[in-house]
Each structure stands twice: as structure tokens, then as C-alpha cells.
């Protein structure tokens, strides 16, 4: 089912357009709740895949995730002699 990303909208039920300071406060709260190890891990996350995912429509994100899992499962079942 092809979906035009322009048609896709994400609407938060309680606040259609959260203000920037609300987002910052929420982020600060979430980061503060993490232990130092997780805070360090957040800083080290490679953001490129996240940006690619956010550029897709939600339905395409689902399709990509399903395709990736199917590919991984195929590798698991049919290991090629060269890959062993």
C-alpha cells in the first residue's frame, strides 16, 4: 500500500503542537532519569539511521522493519558456505 508521506500526520491527542520549551523540559527530565551509563550511550548513538527512518512515512518504516527481519531470518536459516 503506497502512502504519500505528505499525507501522513502525527497528532498528539493532548497537545497538537508541543512548544519547544515543553520538549526541552521533557528531554531534560528523561535524560535526568537515566543512569550515567545510559546517558553516555545516548550521546554515542549514531543518528544517521534515525534520520533516514524519520524521513520515511510511518508505513514505510513498518515495511522496512519487516523486510529487515525477514532478511535476518533468512540469513539465520540458510547460512552460505562462504559466510560460515
Amino acid at each position, binding site marked *: 500500500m503506497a*502512502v504519500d508521506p505528505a499525507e501522513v500526520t502525527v497528532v498528539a*491527542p493532548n497537545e497538537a503542537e508541543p512548544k519547544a520549551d515543553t520538549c526541552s523540559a521533557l528531554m531534560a527530565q528523561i535524560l535526568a532519569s537515566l543512569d550515567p551509563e*545510559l546517558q553516555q550511550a545516548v550521546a554515542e548513538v549514531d543518528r544517521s539511521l534515525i534520520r533516514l527512518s524519520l524521513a520515511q512515512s510511518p508505513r514505510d518504516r*513498518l515495511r522496512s522493519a519487516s523486510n529487515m527481519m525477514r532478511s535476518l*531470518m533468512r540469513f539465520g536459516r540458510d547460512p552460505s558456505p562462504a559466510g560460515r
Partner: protein
Amino acid sequence: MTHHPPAADLNALLGELVGAGVEFVIVGGAAAVLQGAPVATLDLDIVHRRTPENVARLLAVLERLDATMRYDLAYRNLRPTAEMLGGRGQINLSTSLGPLDPLCEIDEGLGYEELLAHTDQITDGSISLHVLDLPTLISVKLKTGRAKDRMVVPLLVATLQERSEPKEP
């Protein structure tokens, strides 16, 4: 013994549920994916509304998808029932479209009604989905205390940060 795919066809499963009018909230890995986190997930986790009418709609979809219990080592092809779906447990099913987990409650007693206020509604014109929002997803993952949930938290937080960044004009 039935042979169902080991990985969920997320779009097809959601299409079946929405098409049948089932009321549910998407949680777990599929929620993370819909929110933009590049994570891998084998199954579709949903928290369904436990009214008798909605349970009947969900059960009809599950019957059509040949749903059986996923972790029945005796391979008895046990089927989900309305009593199970109306209870408080978490049900792991194998279906003809891959693994589907209808969860009556998550995170110490949160059901459909409680979670609905913590969802984003994602709509594409033909389909409208209630997806657990990222802050709640992060909170749920942290509370489980399981290593596999803890591992995904940095990616979820980073996704939330990326989404919060001001867009370039």
C-alpha cells in the same frame, strides 16, 4: 503443526486489525518503529480494548489468521479464547502473518484506556493508528529492568531528541 512466518508482516497485520474495527494501542518494537526509531522487531505487540464487542472483533481476526499459542512446546495448536483476551495477561500468538502479541495490560496494570492518553495518533488517510508515544515507551522499557529493553532505551531517547530538533526551513 502449523507453519507460520517467524517475523511479522507489520503492515498486513495492522491492516487486518484496523479493517476489522479492532480498537488497540500499538506498543513495543512496532511502536518504536512507527515513531521513527530504527529498531528490529519480530512481532507486533498491541494492547487491545477489553470490551466484549472489541474482544469479539479481535478474536474473529485471530481465527481468520489461524492464531495459535506461540510457546506451546507440545504443539497442541492451542487457540486464544475470549476469556484470555478479556483477562489481564499477555498472550504470545503465532499467526499466518507472523507473531502477534495481544497484551491485556502492560507496565503494572495499564490497559487500553489508561494508555490511550499516552499515544500519538498516526494517520495516513486510509488508516489511523494509536501508537504509544516515545516518552511512555522509554518509561515502560526502563521499568521492566530487562537487559533487552534497557539496550533499546538510548536509541529511543536519541530518536526523541532528533524529533525535537527544530526543522530546517
